[in-house]
């Protein structure tokens, strides 16, 4: 390698300090939130004067929090499932197909990643207002699909491109129909791509707030929207508790994804 850490001399310390600072910048807010969620002060004083699990009790005692979490979960699971399904079909077309405008279409599918979410949100809101999808689970799912699909398509087109087409051809020559060959051979072979697509789609929906604020109604809110709206009304450590749980689930999912990836490599 051109840049070898061991041969950097005293620069090693500079590099170490920079890395530690970046890591601290990224991780400290999460640590603070977790600490505050167990702090006894109602005003989110840091360091906390004492420790309590009161806010978690309050959180679980309030049905509106549970309802928001349940809504988030349902939407994220639906988004994840549909995103993988649509992403898979689209990726087969993009990777295997030969039609004019293929490269353009591939770029087009990725644009929601670059476009400002608020622009998307306003457009989708205006459109859904006409067809009456605002404040419905279907509305949430479709809106989140728009931002989740690029992740699916990126993960699945990459996986399909790495997969040697001859393996599928071999399965067909073995007597499997083209569909059966895809189902029994190609899909299991790109399972790491399918997992990545599912988890990234889930997380995209799970912590998405901008589109969700536009889609939400007083009776239908996702967890991030509930956190945001509660924050505007009053400052309570219950928010810190909810945020900590949100982060925990995200970390667990990332760990599962890492474990799956490692397991598949063996």
């Amino acid at each position: 390698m051109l840049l070898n850490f061991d041969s950097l001399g005293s620069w090693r310390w500079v590099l170490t300090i920079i890395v530690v600072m970046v890591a601290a910048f990224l991780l400290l807010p999460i640590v603070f939130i977790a600490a505050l969620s167990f702090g006894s002060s109602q005003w989110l004083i840091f360091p906390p004067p004492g420790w309590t699990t009161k806010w978690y009790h309050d959180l679980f005692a309030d049905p509106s929090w549970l309802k928001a979490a349940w809504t988030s979960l349902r939407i994220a699971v639906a988004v994840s499932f549909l995103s993988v399904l649509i992403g898979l079909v689209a990726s087969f077309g993009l990777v295997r197909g030969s039609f004019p405008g293929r490269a353009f279409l591939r770029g087009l599918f990725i644009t929601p990643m670059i476009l400002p979410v608020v622009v998307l949100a306003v457009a989708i809101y205006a459109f859904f207002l006409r067809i009456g999808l605002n404040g419905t689970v279907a509305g949430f799912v479709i809106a989140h699909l728009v931002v989740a699909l690029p992740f699916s398509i990126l993960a699945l087109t990459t996986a399909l491109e790495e997969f040697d087409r001859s393996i599928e051809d071999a399965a067909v020559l073995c007597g499997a129909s083209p569909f059966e060959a895809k189902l029994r051979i190609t899909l299991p072979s790109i399972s790491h791509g399918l997992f990545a697509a599912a988890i990234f789609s889930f997380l995209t929906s799970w912590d998405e707030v901008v589109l969700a604020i536009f889609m939400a109604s007083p009776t239908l809110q996702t967890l991030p929207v509930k956190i945001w709206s509660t924050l505007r009304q009053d400052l309570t450590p219950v928010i810190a508790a909810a945020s900590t749980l949100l982060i925990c689930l995200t970390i667990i999912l990332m760990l599962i994804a890492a474990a799956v990836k490692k397991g598949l490599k063996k």
Partner: protein
Amino acid sequence: MTHPFLEIRGIRKEYAMIPAVRDVSLNIRKGEFMTFLGPSGSGKSTTLFILAGFQDPTAGDILLEGKSLLSTPSQHRNIGMVFQRYTLFPHLTVAENIAFPLKVRRWPKARIEAKVAEMLRLVRLEGFETRKPATMSGGQQQRVALARALAYDPPVLLMDEPLSALDKRLREEIQVEIRRIHQQTGVTILYVTHDQEEALRMSDRIAVFSKGVIDQVGTGEELYANPATRFVAGFIGDSDFIDCELRGAAGGKAKVALKDGLEIGGIPLHGEGKPGARVALMLRPERTRIDPAGASGGAIPAVVTDITFLGSNVHVATETETGAPVSVRLPFGHPSISALARGQKVGLGFDPAEAHVFS
């Protein structure tokens, strides 16, 4: 009327109007080991893919025991194939890989198990049942691929340069294995390669492909002794070509004149040519004689440019006085070798009946 076992009839394949295969016709006997030999882009792999059903020909037909295969989709052709790249199913074990075509055919479980064991014995990989492809060497993977392709007793086995990714020693080892399996099973094999040595070592007959057509079909000996075209002569065995002029042709024998006016007659002529036409005289290095004393009595005058020791034989590079490079291969210990030195003037001789003239 009896049909040929496998008949390739006037196959043509164009991509965007550019023909990859121009016109290929070939009859293959049951149980034959037929090799398609040619450089890349000569249409040999495309012909194989058309047989497999991955591509449809622009024109022509393929008949197996008199019945056209073209309307049958790949999965129902019951043809076995081993690919150039490793195509074992990565998430399945060796045993599951071999069982896959049998499961698709809904064989009963006990029969599948017996067949998998039989195939593993055939390719000598007993004990590898539970291994995953990623943990095996390239040679082992190709042997499993061979077992998988033969498990359902296909009448025809296609092999598309299956050994090209392996190193030379392993390649020779598996060539012997494939030969043995061919004799043991009696399956008809169509084998694609660009390696003439591999083709000569394994095949019953070889079809030499060049620019989308078959130049010649025959046993290795036939192709070597009697090449039909200059391309075949250059592809099978080593050869040197000397430009010369056709002076006359009669009864399939040509009389040619080298640039310095030396005339040689009685050489087999391939192709047409009018007196005065420019033709190529082909010599085999192992059949060309070298006279250290110099040119006399109709020998071609030449100068030694290099002498290379190659183990069992010695390679002498020469250049004729007209500038054509001609090499001579002498067995190790040949009395002439000690009398040769770089820059020395020598005479080259050959038996006209063993040389060839191509128009």
